[in-house]
């Protein structure tokens, strides 16, 4: 039998898009956590009777990302029978009635003045500044070992007729 073979072989490679690096999720995770905490603080603090009518107002001064997260995810929720209403405030001392006021880092410098302005109002003041409880804030976000936690002042809250529940106290890193 005649030995016959002819081989034409070519080895080549074509690029393919099998390997793709993942896309980074560009999220401000602090804003997600703070917004969620603000919502839960609202559920776990008891306001005096006169504050239990109308909408439940959460105001945000500074920190656009926290405001946006609250508007997007929590605006339709309720605190008891009250509908949540989220408001964005400019850096001002002219603050209308609200149940919760979050003062972002950008507005840290006017925090003492804000506290003074709201001294007799049943407004839970949540801040993001070191030593804020001593200045009169009720709850203050802190970072410990990369974790976002909070400290609270029962006294500051009680002075404004705000009652802080035991669950909130048990999760606080420090209580004054």
């Amino acid at each position: 039998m005649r030995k016959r073979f002819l081989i034409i072989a070519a080895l080549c490679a074509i690029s393919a898009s099998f390997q793709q690096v993942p896309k980074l999720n560009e999220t401000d995770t602090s804003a997600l956590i703070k917004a969620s905490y603000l919502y839960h603080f609202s559920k776990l603090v008891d306001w005096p009777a006169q504050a239990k009518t109308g909408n439940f107002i959460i105001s945000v001064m500074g920190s656009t990302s926290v405001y946006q997260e609250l508007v997007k995810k929590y605006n339709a929720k309720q605190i008891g029978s009250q509908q949540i209403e989220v408001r964005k405030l400019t850096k001002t001392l002219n603050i209308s009635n609200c149940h919760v006021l979050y003062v972002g880092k950008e507005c840290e410098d006017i925090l003492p003045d804000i506290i003074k302005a709201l001294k007799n109002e049943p407004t839970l003041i949540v801040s993001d500044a070191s030593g804020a409880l001593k200045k009169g804030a009720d709850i203050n976000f802190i970072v410990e070992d990369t974790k976002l936690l909070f400290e609270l002042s029962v006294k500051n809250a009680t002075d404004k007729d705000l009652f802080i529940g035991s669950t909130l106290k048990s999760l606080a890193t420090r209580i004054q």
Partner: protein
Amino acid sequence: MRTLIYVLFVSLLLPSLAMAQIDDRTQEAYGLYKLGMLKDAAEKIDEVVESKNGKTDAQAWHVRGFIYKDIYAKLENSAINSKSQEEAVRSFKTSMELDEERKLIEMNQLALKFLGVSYFNHASEIIDRHNVYTIDRANDNYLKYKSLMTFLYPDSSLKSKDVEFHLAMSTAYRKIYDEEPQNRAEFFEKSNNSLLMVLDLDPNNWAANYSYSVSFYNKGARNLQQLPNTESIIDVYAISSESMRSIEIALPFMLKAYEIDPDKIESIKGLKWILFNLHQEEESKKMSDLERLKESQR
């Protein structure tokens, strides 16, 4: 992963009938093969290699290899998981082991290389589909490719192919996970395990370091996006703690990616976000400034 194209013009490639004495039944099988009667040829050659003399006949195994290769390539259209492909491989390997005079070596090697590349291409095809039910079969096909290449070229290194394969597998597993992250946690693990295999082979692989980092960072960020659905502040505390742990895992791998290639904008952006979310705001700002600088230089 790249698809290999190994073009063998199978219509022109015929078995080498090199020996003086060839079993008549092998001749008969070869004749059927040449006429394109592949199933009949297979039946005939199976009888030969099962016979006392035939089972040690390198020529018979060689012809058998070609018959099954063509069944796989022509009748089965190079289907994945083909038994004929397996039989062809087994036949060519047996022929090589029996071929003491090495008269059939070149043809056996070429045919085995073709079959090996086919396994590689099957693996690529499975990866490209990234189907939740079939993706793991890519591993089997790649291992068969590796096994054949090692058999043919014992001294060659397949490290770069291994890296390419595991990166591609990681991508496929990740895509499967991303479709239903709540129900497919095991694919998150599999994707990261594939990246760890790459890092084991090549610790300075940029893509593996970057992907591993982003994988954990995204997991943390994704978990936090579930926060609005939580009923209790205790859940918020638990989810945020777990998420931060994921983001912490991401940091050293992104730092390594940045060290490997400081000019890559992806690593700079990655560090900016990871550091920011770990509350290292000063360091994050430096990366943000660097990002702006790099983008202005583009």
